[in-house]
């Protein structure tokens, strides 16, 4: 395990928060894209 010294909490929180934000953004992006693709396919099949 690498040594973070007395600032361990600071560094881990930074990485944690940033990665969480990025993950949320990526998840939302992918989910919305999949949803749009599904709905469009259904429309093109029916209509």
């Amino acid at each position: 395990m690498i040594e973070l010294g007395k600032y361990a909490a600071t560094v881990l929180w930074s990485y944690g928060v940033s990665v969480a934000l990025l993950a949320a953004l990526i998840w939302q992006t992918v989910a919305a894209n999949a949803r749009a693709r599904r709905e469009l396919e259904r429309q093109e099949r029916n209509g």
Partner: protein
Amino acid sequence: MSIWEYANPVKFMRLSGAVLPYAVAGAAICTIGGLVWGFLTPQDYKQGATVKIVFLHVPAAMMAINIWVMMLAASLIWLIRRHHVSALAARAAAPIGAVMTLIALATGAIWGQPMWGTWWEWDPRLTSFLILLLFYIGYMALWAAVEDPDSAADLTGVLCLVGSVFALLSRYAVLFWNQGLHQGASLSVAPGERMSAVYRYPLYLSMLGFFLLFLALLLIRTRTEVRRRRLAALQARETRA
């Protein structure tokens, strides 16, 4: 064939579909690589382990500004040349920019606690970022509120234009208002203060990673927007008929 023809939705879908896998792969490799490498760098003699935050903070801050500039460019292309995909790209970019701004603010705030002894200070740099976040929020809210896509594209384009001027104006106003604590751009300042190579190279990689991440997300989100517009267009035509 002019470059503008790629603003045609069909061509855009084809081209972006081809580029997307590479963008995703590059973004994954560079972002993860840069962040892991950055995380493993040794401690700084002054800042201790907190230097590791720079690999998140600086790329995010950089992208936060650059994405707004890109949105401005895309808005201008829409307003002048009426390329529909370009308006959708501006829309797609905004949430990415907002998240980048949030990351810069969050990492900065967490960093400020040990360095300056405070989570938040009304320093000009930090304040400007807060203002930038406000502009992102307003821009996204306007896109969400206007139902007609043509009006929404035009109105957000005008807002982006006026907003850019005022974001710049606010930056100078804030500088006048308060002198700050935040360090300058250490990548380019005098050689003595130059960041050592140990930190510089992972920083470069991480910056590249954030840029590629933006590109990949932008492509996906723009594709989502294109599909949504197409769905709405098909429904509108059916309803009209």
